[in-house]
């Protein structure tokens, strides 16, 4: 470590604009355009908020809220903003590789930065917050609870995730991000080869968002374990809740390896330790081992909730009970446990014996069995169902077909001998995009379309929804299926330039596909815009627009802050569907009780800002600031534990008034059958026209 000034190693040259002034070229222009877009975006948001005088409401209703529904929505907004950046980076990378043999407009360094941020963002700041956003919104509604187990901790988790994501945004404007890929393997990311700030941005973003994620995992696990409504036994839980339990278990046990790996890398870089260095007994293979101890469970913690969403979507839009509930539960838990036994398949080529490779290869192939069970269960749910091709269902069908291809390419890769041939090629890139897009992203978008009316009280535009399904599907296929072929032809991943002309046609197709994906992203935004504009025609205040089956649909849309006026008594799986069939779906409670809910608090926001400053100070070696903020964070947390008035009471009378107003609405609404679900007369009261098929 060297002597540094008041601002650590932060100087004028740390800003990319300095590079542009010295030497304007395409590479610098792209870098500065990205920084510029970021800055303009921030100024625009700040300006709009000020213009419409929204700072007060934003602070009161959102930033300080401990309501799980609002925290969930904030997670999703954050994820979509980050998704926009991730997709744009993907397009720039495809453009670079499509330019032709030895061509291109980016420097190698810049390209490396792009694939590093793209991976880091898409995994940690799109997929994870999107999954958590939906889970946050849904879990208490599905199990009949008023909030998650630890509402304030929930807020802190969000704060940590957002501040870590902001570090990636800051790295656009100040300094540069890591060039070591999302896995950041040392010794390349060690102090000797990479003395700059890049890997430090990566390390602290990962450490902070990782601790936020761990807290969320604990929160969800305890919520589902302890806060279920009376009668909601484990075998009556919606499958989505089961997938979130599994995900939470994976988080609790799999985030520590990532934290350990990142902190050890930090010790190497900051304190000159020798965990992963080339000299004095350091061993980088330990890093690979640790990273993938986390990395493999991570992909399942992302994809399992998507399976859960599809399970709900298939059941609802087939108007059938989910087929093979028990087998789905068992398969989910099997996947969760098996996912801890396969991490070595990410480094088959590191040099261990064939026996070890074989053991882990077989373990990997075993995961295909429970996954296969799930696919058959979903197909059996569709079979002879009363299917509507609504947007979530379309995503589901695209998922079923494309995801199986991705899964099978995974089984191919699980064979170590094959892996020796295709590892580190675009075949691998094609494989994991093939599971992450149709699997995770389609699942999340299906969930977004499915539950949007529950969250905001109006439906999303169906036509634009269908357009975006088509664009995502076609865009995915054009972009990533060609990569299987170039991968088999031997094109290495992460190469900013290549020489073999036979790759060119494939790269051009992939580039076109990237633009289709970009337009898919725009179509999602347009869909949201159009839906907000036309929201008067799509109101569903009664709350059950799809004739759905689980508990969250039995309450108003949007739900009141306390979710359930009276905590329901559960007697069946798909309790709400059964109640609708009996005609008892909307009972009038005899009596109401005072409800105490967590009061607003600013601790999450404070932790968000402070941890952001803390990371920045550490990245730039501003030691006094880092120390100061550490003390401040500790103090603010300790002081916060002295707060006693953490709850506020909503009087029973108030609850009764609101609930009875809604019941009147239910009684006056005209029931709508499935064929008219997307018509304006759908106010959220379903008319079950078929006996439920069991």
């Amino acid at each position, binding site marked *: 470590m060297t002597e540094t000034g008041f601002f650590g190693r932060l100087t004028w040259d740390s800003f990319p604009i300095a590079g542009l002034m010295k030497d304007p070229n395409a590479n610098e222009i792209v870098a500065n355009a990205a920084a510029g877009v970021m800055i303009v975006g921030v100024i625009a948001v700040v300006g709009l908020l000020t213009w419409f005088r929204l700072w007060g409401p934003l602070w009161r209703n959102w930033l300080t809220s401990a309501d799980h529904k609002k925290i969930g929505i904030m997670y999703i907004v954050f994820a979509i903003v980050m998704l926009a950046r991730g997709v744009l980076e993907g397009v720039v990378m495809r453009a670079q590789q499509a330019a032709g043999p030895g061509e291109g407009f980016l420097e190698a360094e810049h390209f490396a930065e792009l694939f590093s941020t793209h991976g880091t963002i898409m995994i940690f700041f799109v997929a994870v917050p999107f999954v958590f956003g939906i889970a946050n919104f849904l879990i208490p509604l599905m199990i009949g609870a008023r909030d998650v187990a*630890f509402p304030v901790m929930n807020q802190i988790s969000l704060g940590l995730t957002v501040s870590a994501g902001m570090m990636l945004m800051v790295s656009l404007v100040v300094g540069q991000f890591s060039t070591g890929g999302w896995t950041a393997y040392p010794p390349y990311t060690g102090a000797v080869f990479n003395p700059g700030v890049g890997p430090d941005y990566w390390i602290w973003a990962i450490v902070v968002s990782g601790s936020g994620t761990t807290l969320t995992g604990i929160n969800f696990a305890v919520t589902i374990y302890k806060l279920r409504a009376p009668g909601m036994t484990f075998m009556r839980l919606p499958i989505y809740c089961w997938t979130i339990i599994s995900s939470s278990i994976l988080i609790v046990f799999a985030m520590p390896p990532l*934290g*350990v790996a990142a902190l050890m890398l930090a010790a190497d870089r900051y304190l000159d330790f020798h965990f992963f260095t080339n000299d004095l007994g350091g061993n980088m293979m330990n890093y690979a081992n640790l990273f993938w101890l986390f990395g493999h469970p991570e992909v399942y913690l992302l994809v399992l909730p998507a399976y859960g969403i599809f399970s709900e979507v298939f059941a609802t839009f087939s108007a059938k009970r989910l087929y093979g509930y028990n087998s789905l539960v068992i398969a989910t838990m099997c996947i969760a446990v098996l996912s801890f036994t396969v991490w070595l398949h990410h480094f088959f080529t590191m040099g261990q014996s064939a026996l070890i490779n074989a053991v882990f290869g077989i373990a990997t192939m075993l995961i295909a069995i429970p996954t296969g069970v799930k696919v058959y269960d979903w197909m059996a749910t569709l079979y002879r169902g009363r299917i509507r091709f609504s947007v979530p269902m379309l995503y589901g069908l695209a998922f079923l077909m494309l995801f199986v291809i991705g899964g099978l390419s995974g089984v191919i890769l699980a064979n170590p001998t094959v892996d020796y041939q295709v590892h580190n090629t675009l075949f691998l890139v094609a494989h994991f995009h093939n599971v992450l897009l149709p699997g995770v992203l389609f699942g999340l978008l299906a969930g977004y379309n499915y539950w949007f009316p529950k969250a905001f009280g109006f439906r999303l535009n169906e036509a634009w929804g269908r357009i975006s399904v088509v664009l995502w599907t076609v865009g995915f296929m054009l972009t990533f299926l060609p990569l299987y072929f170039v991968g088999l032809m031997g094109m290495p991943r992460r190469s900013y330039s290549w020489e073999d002309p036979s790759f060119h046609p494939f790269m051009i197709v992939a580039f076109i596909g990237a633009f289709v994906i970009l337009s898919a992203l725009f179509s999602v935004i347009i869909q949201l815009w159009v839906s907000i504009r036309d929201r008067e025609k799509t109101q569903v205040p009664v709350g059950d627009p799809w004739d759905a089956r689980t508990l969250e649909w039995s309450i108003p849309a949007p739900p009141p802050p306390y979710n359930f006026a009276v905590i329901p008594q559960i007697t069946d799986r798909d309790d709400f569907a059964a109640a609708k069939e009996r005609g008892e779906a909307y009972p009038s409670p005899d009596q109401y009780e005072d409800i105490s809910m967590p009061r607003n608090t600013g601790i999450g926001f404070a932790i968000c800002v402070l941890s952001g400053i803390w990371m920045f100070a550490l990245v730039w070696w501003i030691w006094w600031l880092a120390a100061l903020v550490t003390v401040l964070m500790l103090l603010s947390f300790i002081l916060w534990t002295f707060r006693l008035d953490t709850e506020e009471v909503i009087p029973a009378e108030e609850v009764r008034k609101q609930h009875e107003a809604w019941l009147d609405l239910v009684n006056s609404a005209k029931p709508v059958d499935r064929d008219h679900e997307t018509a304006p007369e759908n106010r959220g009261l379903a008319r079950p026209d078929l006996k439920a098929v069991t």
Partner: protein
Amino acid sequence: MKRAPTHSYPGLNLGRRHASADKASEVVTFGFWVFLMSDLVYFGLMFAIYITMIDAQAGGPGPHDLFNMTSIFAQTLILLTSSLTVGLAMLALKYNLPRWRIVFWFSVTLVLGICFLVLEIRDFMDMAEKGGIPQRSGFLSAFYGLVPLHGVHVAAGCLWLVVLGIQLRVFGLTDLVMSRVVRLALFWHFLDLIWIGIITIVYFGGLTYG
């Protein structure tokens, strides 16, 4: 799901007299258990790394040159005794003994915790004098990644004790404070368990295989 009416949360509990505190702390104590298990994986990985790096001494000083087993024995006794005293503080709370008994056992635990830390830091300084600094070798990096991590936990426990002592004074024996005491006791026992792992694997394991 209706829960079992009495002490339904595992491990430590406050008993019938404090039924409201017990119920309130059930959820949060379970959450704390889950957190501890996550922390356990942290430690487990550090142990695994230590095991893989025992030979990575790179010609630097090894366990036989550095470890002072007398001091380790003393630290073990101190930490073990503090585990007992924190348990007695819990019992004083559970059976409504006079508040000074709680404060007394708290203070003893705090003093023992600080003694432990002082001894540990003295050990590290001795090691550093003999050239045993983390920058010297992979083995020493792994050692200093693991043992001080436990020390930091003990320090956090001490800070927690102090804060709880103040809260005991400010709020009295409210449900909230009692449920926090339960969690502190859990945390402290947990650190003792980790310490058993450290003497067995880091110290004795290091001396045997290093």
